[in-house]
């Protein structure tokens, strides 16, 4: 009965609203390149808006047993009564060309979901830390995380309507950022603005790459 419900559900047409370009991952030889960029920042800083401005946004969820997070789970013994929590993330995909795509992952905003961050951060090219000047301290944990992991990041100050605009340098000082961390102003609702922020992230990664390999 219950299985039938799922069957019916999945037999209804699944909404597939990609752009027309069909991209095929080349099998086995690793020629598919995935550029993973994380979008972090405090609650309400505009992460969802930013991802949605440049890609079709999709909600993604993962369920974790909080008490077991990070520990291998190899059987179902004692599952009853464990706290399961759902962690929601947003992600979007931008196809650059066949075999090359940018994936944006909005990170969970709560500190206790760091274990999800670790998975997201694996192989990440760089990150955007979205800052809301009304609650600048909300992005401290993200800044710390990326600094510790050595993941290149750009601080993007989301200029909300009605929020006071601060010069980038003032934000840099307030967050105690090194001179190497770009601070840019953006409007997370504007596609062009978000594109520029992402370009900054890739350029930063490129600069670091060039300094290592030259």
């Amino acid at each position, binding site marked *: 009965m219950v299985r039938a419900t799922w069957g019916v559900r999945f037999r209804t047409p699944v909404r597939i609203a990609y752009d027309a370009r069909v991209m095929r991952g080349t099998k086995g030889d690793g020629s598919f390149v995935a550029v993973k960029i994380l979008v972090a920042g405090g609650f309400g800083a505009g*992460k969802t*808006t930013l991802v949605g401005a440049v890609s079709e946004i999709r909600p*993604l969820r993962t369920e974790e047993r909080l008490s077991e997070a990070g520990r291998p789970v190899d059987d179902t013994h004692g599952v009853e009564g464990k706290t399961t929590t759902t962690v929601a993330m947003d992600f979007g995909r931008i196809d650059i060309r066949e075999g090359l795509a940018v994936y944006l992952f*909005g990170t969970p905003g709560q500190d206790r979901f760091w274990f999800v961050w670790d998975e997201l951060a694996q192989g990440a090219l760089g990150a955007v830390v979205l800052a809301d000047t009304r609650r600048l301290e909300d992005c401290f944990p993200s800044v710390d995380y990326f600094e510790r992991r050595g993941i290149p990041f750009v601080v993007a100050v989301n200029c909300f309507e009605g929020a006071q605009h601060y010069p980038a340098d003032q934000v840099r000082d307030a967050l105690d950022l090194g001179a190497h961390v770009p601070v840019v102003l953006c409007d997370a609702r504007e596609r062009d603005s978000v594109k520029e922020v992402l370009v900054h992230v890739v350029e930063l990664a490129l600069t670091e790459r060039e300094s290592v390999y030259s």
Partner: protein
Amino acid sequence: MPGEQDGFDGADGFEEEPDDALADHDAEEAELGQLVRPYTLTRGRTRHAVSEAFDLVTQISPAPRESGGADEEAQDPEHEAILELVRVRTLSVAELAADLDLPLGVVRILLGDLFEAELIEVTRPVPAAELPHVDILREVIRGLRAL
């Protein structure tokens, strides 16, 4: 601000009302989703022998076979749903989880089943972070600007 109430940012109090955070889902769909606990679909399994291989951006495509009909009919509806999606185009693990509205852990287990049944091909993409080629990054910059 428009958009802010949707999706993740509006849903940090998420534990009590899981479906609140899933934007653009109609009530009927949400109701259906609650009929089955997610891990019922995996017959209680929370880990699969090969599910560790499925990174978020790992690409899934159908195994190249013309007449796999008999095997595929034996699959559960969720397995079939995955196969239907990847027949349209190669998809990442993250995209499959979002399209099927299933938690990542569940999708990984279902993919493990399909992999063992040799019904899918799994391609781990090269993370750009590990590539020394600056040309790829320049291409990404050009591509983003051209969006």
